[in-house]
């Protein structure tokens, strides 16, 4: 399929998910927190389309509410990563000097940690909870992006159109905002979209470990760990939330790859088939 069609399909799917998340209160047949112990592990029926879980809560309603947590956390993480890495990377790349040198060393240290382990460590310090998971993932990802922004800024700084604008007397800040930022932004959008799925996997993985979203809040990773003891008799309770994570991550990945193919066709042959922060191919290395 050509990239335009893939982007359209993925965006339509994401829009439907956003709508489902926003209107979860209207379309869910039941309250996701309402327990009904007499009716636990109910099979699929008209009133409970996907059955109920070990506390008699409606599975479909919990899955629908689960979209909220997933989208919200991914949105928060990616927005914060973009903001942070832009601020630091632009400043370092454009100003250079000591600020840049110090910044590069800090990044180097962050990049030596294995990301998921660093996230665990930060949660160990900050305590469990969704917000702390978001903070931990932002702190473990920003350095990759900041370095990328810095590298791109250095690359664009020497381009003809930037020099031309400088020679016309445009101020430093104006040059950055008008001529460098837009180009860097396009690259960042591609990279962050490629990483969205990875981020969601981190969030749900941490929730699965019991370190992120806390029960009884409906979240897909938590639902899987809740259903784990009943895997023999009720495997569907694990399959549904897992399928939700898988499909969401897959759609994010389809969108990211399609955007990459459309906006930056050279990327395909630059040799990075890796999604996740490890894909941060340094622009300097080109």
């Amino acid at each position, binding site marked *: 399929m050509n990239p335009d069609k893939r982007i359209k399909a993925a965006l339509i799917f994401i829009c439907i998910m956003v709508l489902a998340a926003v209107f979860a209160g209207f379309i869910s047949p039941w309250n996701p927190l309402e327990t009904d112990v007499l009716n636990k592990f109910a099979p699929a029926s008209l009133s409970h389309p996907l059955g109920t879980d070990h506390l008699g809560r409606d599975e479909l309603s919990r899955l629908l509410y689960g979209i909220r947590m997933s989208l919200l956390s991914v949105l928060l993480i990616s927005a914060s990563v973009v903001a942070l890495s832009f601020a630091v990377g632009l400043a370092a790349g454009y100003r250079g000097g000591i600020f840049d040198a110090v910044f590069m060393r800090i990044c180097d240290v962050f990049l030596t940690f294995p990301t998921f*382990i660093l996230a665990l460590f930060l949660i160990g310090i900050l305590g469990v909870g969704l917000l702390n998971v978001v903070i931990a993932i932002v702190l473990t990802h920003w350095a990759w992006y900041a370095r990328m922004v810095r590298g791109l800024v250095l690359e664009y700084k020497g381009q003809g159109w930037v020099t031309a604008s400088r020679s016309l007397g445009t101020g430093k800040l104006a040059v950055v905002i008008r001529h460098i930022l837009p180009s860097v932004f396009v690259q960042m959008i591609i990279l962050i979209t490629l990483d969205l799925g990875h981020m969601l996997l981190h969030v749900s993985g941490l929730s699965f470990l019991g370190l992120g979203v806390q029960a009884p809040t409906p979240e897909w990773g938590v639902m899987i760990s809740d259903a784990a003891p009943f895997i023999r008799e009720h495997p569907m309770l694990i399959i549904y939330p897992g399928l939700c994570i898988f499909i969401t991550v897959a759609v994010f990945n389809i969108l990211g790859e399609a955007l990459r193919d459309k906006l930056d066709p050279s990327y395909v042959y630059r040799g990075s088939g890796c999604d996740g922060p490890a894909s941060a191919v340094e622009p300097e290395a080109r």
Partner: protein
Amino acid sequence: MAYFIIKRLLLLIPILLAVSFIVFFLLRFGPVDPAYAYLTQSQIPPTEEALAQTRIELGLDRPFPEQYLSWLKKAVTMDFGISYVTKRPVLDDVLYYLPVTLKLTGLSMLFIVFFSVPLGVYSALHRDGPWDRGLSLLSFAGVSFPSFWLGFLLIYVLSLKLGWLAPFGISSPSGYVMPVLTLSFMSFAINMRLTRTSVLEHMGARSVVYARARGLSERNVIGKHVLKNSMIPIVTSLGMHFGELLGGAVIVETLFALPGLGRYAVGSIYSHDYPVIQCFMLLMTAVFILVNLAADIIYAWLNPKIRYGEAG
């Protein structure tokens, strides 16, 4: 080459120092007071007096640089303090759990290298063939699959439905089969795809066109000119993926109830057992750095440009 390796080993010292400083700094200035965590874990009510007493005991009353230096001195001699929970030396506990984690991640790495690279090469050489399409689909699924979900699916199908493997534990070597599959699937998928891209990229290189023009056999061209060069980015990527494996091991050990370091660390996070969390973090980072050093050395061996560039 020896010069290159010695230089890289010496570079490890400042990196490890910086890492240890950051880890120490973050723990000391986190929102939870270590003295408070210590007391609650020891079942002592955290009164003002007890807190003050514990702070002196743990050395938290001294200025920060002094605390760091005295901790560093001990850490160099492999003394990481006493666990708040078990009251045993942290290192003993950690070394008890470490072998399972290393075995799990090591086996997964072997699995990834032995399967993703040949399959990626095969895919590239038979581009757009049925196998290539199938493997591309598999690698797309791999990058989107939550590992913990895969683990449960494997348990359900292989253990509960087919009865081939024991669902949990590692009483027999076959106990590692499902954990290794679960842990390596994503990195396997990513590296297979990367191998395919890298090989395709190098097939179009000028040196390859020239080698063909010289009339070298196809086998010679692929073996000598394409494969060796296309392995360069893959070695780096494999090194980076070791970090993903160490992180993923935490989830996989919890899922399959393996007595590994990751599962132990998750427990320590719940109980605010700071010395353990600290030691876990440092040890995992050190392992990751060493694996990447090994990857760098292989990289330099494959790519003389780097070797001489760095050494000269």
